[in-house]
């Protein structure tokens, strides 16, 4: 059913035809975009899953080491040992454009690159378990940063895919059929007008002939 607001004129017909052309072109482009986004998204998801399980594993390991350390040492000593960190992390962020989605790319730099140099305490008063815990933690930290980046990318891409998918569907199931319907309605109406005016002309011709020559068909 065409929308009632439409007036069956040639001008509107041309407008509707142009709209249909644009809509089908947009539909095709958006569909391509959606497919490509989806492909990349699945890669990101796979990577995310792998990283997450690695991080969870690594953290569990580090925490269990830390638990042992806190059992061996008194809480005050433990707190004191790591109160003033030696290591600092410099984090820089750039935005990368992936299929029109701006995703953050983190670049980080640790103050001391040597992983053996991260301990902010002297070894005399602390237990070896704490050293293990901290080095396990610093090992998993790199993965954690990558996880942050990948997970954010995944979320942003999910949003973009959702948007694109809705647009594709709106074009495919609403916009394009509506345009086609309108075009059909207008062409029919115009043809109908043509026919009725033709009939009217013939009728008038008959009447004129009859008046002039007393001639009837």
């Amino acid at each position, binding site marked *: 059913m065409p929308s009632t607001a439409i007036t069956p004129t040639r001008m509107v017909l041309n407008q509707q035809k142009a709209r249909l052309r644009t809509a089908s072109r947009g539909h095709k482009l958006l569909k391509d975009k959606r497919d490509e986004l989806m492909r990349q998204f699945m890669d990101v*998801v796979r990577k995310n899953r792998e990283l997450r399980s690695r991080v969870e594993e690594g953290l569990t390991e580090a925490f269990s080491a830390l638990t042992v350390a806190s059992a061996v040492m008194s809480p005050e000593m433990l707190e004191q040992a790591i109160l003033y960190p030696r290591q600092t992390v410099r984090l820089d962020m750039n935005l990368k454009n992936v299929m029109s989605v701006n995703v953050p790319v*983190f670049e980080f730099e640790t103050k001391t690159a040597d992983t053996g140099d*991260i301990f902010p305490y002297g070894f005399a008063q602390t237990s070896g378990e704490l050293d293990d815990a901290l080095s396990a933690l610093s090992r998993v930290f790199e993965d954690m940063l990558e996880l942050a980046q990948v997970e954010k990318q995944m979320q942003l891409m999910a949003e973009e895919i959702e948007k694109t998918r809705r647009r594709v569907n709106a074009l495919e199931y609403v916009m394009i059929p509506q345009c086609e319907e309108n075009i059909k309605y207008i062409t029919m109406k115009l043809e109908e007008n043509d026919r009725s005016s033709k009939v009217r002309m013939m009728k008038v011709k008959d009447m004129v002939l009859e008046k002039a020559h007393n001639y009837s068909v």
Partner: protein
Amino acid sequence: MLKIAVLGGRATVMGFKALGLDVYPVETDEKARETFKRLTRNDDEYAIIYVEESYYKCLSQEIDKFKDRPTPAVILIPGREGPLGFGQSALKAAVERAVGSDIL
């Protein structure tokens, strides 16, 4: 320069202090919410906020606000008790959102 924050129970965040991250130990849900709000108040101050999984329940509303923005990245990490599965479910939710159904 951007910063990284870690929000969670004291025992969980303690280790990260040694790595040079900003740690925010919290004990209660109330406190966690308050701290999280404070961390996200200044735009772009923190690029990454790691949140302990056990606080996800009370923070989920706040966290969802930042899903569509480039910063900060709010990432769930397991606490001392080991993974609770919220991190995995976040992944599932993203897939569901993109694809329309859970295909994993």
